[in-house]
C-alpha cells in the first residue's frame, strides 16, 4: 500500500500525518524501487562524480557535472543554476571530498524540486481533477490508476472520458474504470469534450461521489484550436462547480526532452496547471525535465510513474527523487 497521506490531501484514508509501520516499510520499498529503476543513471553519474571528485577545485569537475546533468535532460538553464550553486559552495571551501560534492548536489537538486505543495488536493466535495497533456504521455493510464488509488484511500470516483478524439480511448478508460470500481461517464466519438466533463461533474455531484477525474484527448500544445478547446473544457467545469477544477495535472513523459518545458508553458497558458505527473520513469530516462520545469515554472511534481503496475503510480517526494537520481545510499 502507498502512504496516501503523501499522495492526497482531503481523503479519510489519507489524512494521517504519522505513517503506520507498514507504510514506512512501503516507503522504503518505494525508495528501493526508484533507486533500482534509476540505477543506470545513478551509476553513470556516480562514476562521473567519483572520477572527477579527486580534485573538487579543478575546472573540469564542473564541466563533467554539467555533462551529466545535461545528459539527464535537466536542460541548460537548470544545469547552469545547479553548477553555479555548487561552484559557490566550492568557492566558500565547502566541497573538499567526493562525499561533500555528492551531498551538495543532492541538496541543490532537492532544493530546486521542493517548495510547492505536492499532494493532490481533494478536500472539496466533489473534487474535480482535470488531466491534460500531449499525445502518448500516459494520461489515460494515469487517470485509471489514480482512480484506483483514490478508491483505496477511501474515496469514491467518477471518471469522465473527455477524450472524444483518439480511437478507442473511451474503451481503454472504461476498462480502467471497471477495475477501479469507478462510475464511468462515457462519450461518443467526436462529441464535445466539454459536455462530457460537464456530465461527469454533474454525476459526481448528483451521486455524492468524492472525486471526478476527467481524462482529455492528447493534443500537441502548438495546436491553438485544440488548446482553446481545452480552455473551454475548463471553463465549463468551472461554471458547473465553483472552485473546480481543483487540480489540473499535466502528464509529462520522463523521456521527453526540453520540449517538456514548452508543453508546461503552453498548457499552462490554456488551463492554469496545479502540478505535473511525471510518467515512465522506469526506463533509462532520467526525468531531468522535471528539474527544468520546476526550476523555470515552479510547478510541483505531484505524481510519478515508475512502472506499469498500479502501485507504480506514486506520490512524489523531492528528496527521494533527487536521492534516486543522484545516487542514494542503498
Amino acid at each position, binding site marked *: 500500500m502507498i502512504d496516501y497521506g503523501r499522495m492526497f490531501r482531503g481523503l479519510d484514508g489519507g489524512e494521517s500525518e504519522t505513517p503506520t509501520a507498514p507504510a514506512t516499510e512501503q516507503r522504503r520499498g518505494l525508495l528501493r524501487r526508484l533507486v533500482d529503476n534509476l540505477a543506470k543513471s545513478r551509476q553513470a553519474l556516480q562514476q562521473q562524480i567519483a572520477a572527477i571528485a579527486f580534485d573538487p577545485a579543478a575546472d573540469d569537475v564542473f564541466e563533467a557535472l554539467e555533462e551529466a546533468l545535461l545528459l539527464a535532460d535537466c536542460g*541548460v538553464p537548470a544545469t547552469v543554476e545547479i553548477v553555479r550553486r555548487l561552484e559557490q559552495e566550492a568557492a566558500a571551501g565547502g566541497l573538499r571530498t567526493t562525499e561533500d560534492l555528492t551531498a551538495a548536489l543532492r541538496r541543490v537538486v532537492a532544493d530546486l524540486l521542493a517548495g510547492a505543495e505536492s499532494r493532490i488536493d481533494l478536500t472539496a466535495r466533489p473534487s474535480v481533477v482535470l488531466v491534460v497533456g500531449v499525445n502518448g504521455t500516459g494520461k489515460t493510464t494515469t487517470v485509471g490508476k489514480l482512480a484506483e488509488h483514490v478508491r483505496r484511500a477511501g474515496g469514491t470516483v467518477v471518471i469522465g472520458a473527455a477524450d472524444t478524439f483518439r*480511437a478507442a480511448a473511451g474503451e481503454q478508460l472504461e*476498462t480502467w474504470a471497471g477495475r477501479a470500481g469507478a462510475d464511468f461517464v462515457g462519450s461518443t466519438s467526436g462529441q464535445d469534450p466539454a459536455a462530457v466533463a460537464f456530465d461527469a461533474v454533474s454525476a459526481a455531484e448528483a451521486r455524492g461521489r468524492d472525486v471526478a477525474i476527467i481524462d482529455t484527448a492528447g493534443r*500537441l500544445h502548438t495546436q491553438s484550436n485544440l488548446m482553446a478547446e481545452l480552455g473551454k473544457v475548463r471553463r465549463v467545469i468551472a461554471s458547473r462547480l465553483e472552485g473546480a477544477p481543483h487540480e489540473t495535472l499535466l502528464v509529462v513523459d520522463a523521456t521527453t526532452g526540453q520540449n517538456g518545458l514548452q508543453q508546461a508553458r503552453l498548457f499552462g497558458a490554456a488551463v492554469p496547471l496545479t502540478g505535473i505527473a511525471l510518467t515512465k520513469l522506469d*526506463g533509462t530516462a532520467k526525468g531531468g525535465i522535471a528539474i527544468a520545469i520546476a526550476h523555470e515554472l515552479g510547478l510541483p511534481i505531484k505524481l510519478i510513474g515508475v512502472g506499469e503496475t498500479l502501485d507504480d503510480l506514486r506520490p512524489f517526494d523531492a528528496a527521494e527523487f533527487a536521492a534516486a537520481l543522484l545516487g542514494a545510499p542503498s
Partner: protein
Amino acid sequence: MFDSLADRLNSTLTDLRSRGRLSPEDVAAAMREIRLALLEADVNFKVVKSFVETVRERAVGDGVLGGLNPGQQVIKIVNEELTALMGTGAAKLRLKSSPSVILLAGLQGAGKTTACGKLAMLLAKQGRKPALVACDVYRPAAIDQLQTVGGQAGVPVFERGADVDPAEIAVWGVQQARQQGRDVVIVDTAGRLHVDAELMDELVRIRDAVKPDDTLLVLDAMTGQDAVNVAETFRERVDFSGILLTKLDGDARGGAALSVRAVTGVPIVYASVGEKLDQLEEFHPDRMASRILGMGDVLTLIERISENVDADRAAEMERKLQRSEFTLDDLLDQLRTIRKMGSLGGLAKMIPGLGKQLRGMDVDDRQLDRVEAIILSMTPQERRSPEIVNGTRRARIARGSGTSVQQINALLQQHRQMKKMMKGLAGGKMPGMPAIPGLPAAAGTAHKKRRKKR
C-alpha cells in the same frame, strides 16, 4: 519543427556573416552558440560534442580565416556536416517479399498504433494493398484502436483478441493477409521499454516468427537525451531497418532524430506531421538539414501543392482569371485546396524566411473556417456578383455565418483586392495560388519585403 534551432544558428551565423574577418575567438563563440542550440534542441550531448568538434576542425582546416567570405563558409560546413549526420537521399522500405511484412516497434506512447494506420494509408495511396495485424495484447483497447484506424484507412485488420500469444497472432495475421491477396502486412506491437528484457524477448520472437522485410522503430520527436539509449538497445535486440518519427508537427526541435541517426546509422524513413491519417510523409534528410539552416522546405511545399491541386481546375482558374471572373465561389474552392495541404502554420514554415516572421503570430486555421462560413452563407448570386451585397444582405450573411458585418466587409474588400491583383497576374505562373485570406497581413508584407530584397 526545427525552427528554433534554425533561428539560433541563423543569429550566430548572421553575426559571422556581418563581419568581414573571423578571429579564432569568433569561431569559438560561434561553436559555443551552435553547441548550446543543439543541446536545447535535445541533440544528444555526445553527438553535439563530436559534431561541434568536426565543424570546428573543418572551419579552421579549410582556412576560413583567409577565405573570401568566412561566414558563408561556416554555414556551408555546418550545412554539409548536418546533412552528413542526417544522411542523404530519402530512404525507402525494402518490401521484397509478397506479402511484405513491416514490423512496428517502440516505447509506449510513441504513436505506433496511429502510425500503423497512417502507413497503411500512405502505402494504399501508392497502389499497395496493405493489411494490419493487432499484436498489442497488453494495452486496454489497443486492438479496438487499431480496428478504428484500419477502418478509417480502409484496410483490413486481423486480430485474435488479447489472449493469444503475439507471435502466434503475427504469423496467423500474415497468413490471413496472404490468403486475402494483400501485398503488405503491417504488424502493430505493444509499446515496451527497452530495458524490459521479457518484452524485448517477445519482440524478438515476433520478429523471428514473421521475418519482416522491414522493422521500423517508432520514435517520438519530443524524446530527449534518452533517445540514444532506446535506439541502441532496440537496434541490438531487433535490428530495425528504419525510423518512423512521430509528432513532428509540434514545436519539438527534434534533436532526437539527429542523435539517433548519428548513433545507429539507421535512416529515418517516415515522419508524421499531423493527427490526421494522411499526415505521414516520406522523410527527406537533405531537406531537413536545409530547414535547420532556415532555408525552408520548398521542395515539400511544391510536392504538396502538385499533389492537391487539380491540373484541370487550375487551368480553368487561369482562364477565369484572364477574363477576371474570380468569384467568391472560386475563392472558396482555393481555400479548400489550401486546407487539403495541411495547416497554414505548417505550410508557412516551409516557405523560406516566412517561418521566422510568423513566430508568435497566431496562424489560426479557424480564420479560414470563418471565411468559408461567410461565403457559404451567401446566395449563389451573391457569390457570383459580390457587388450586390448591400447592407441588408450583409446583416443577413453575418447572422447566418456567426460573424460580424465588419468581418464581411473585410472579406469583400480582400476579394476585390485579390481580383485586382490577379488581373495583373493573369499571365503569371501560379494562377491557383493568390494571397491567402485569413493569413495575418503582416506575414504577407514580410514576405513581399523579403522578395524585394533579393
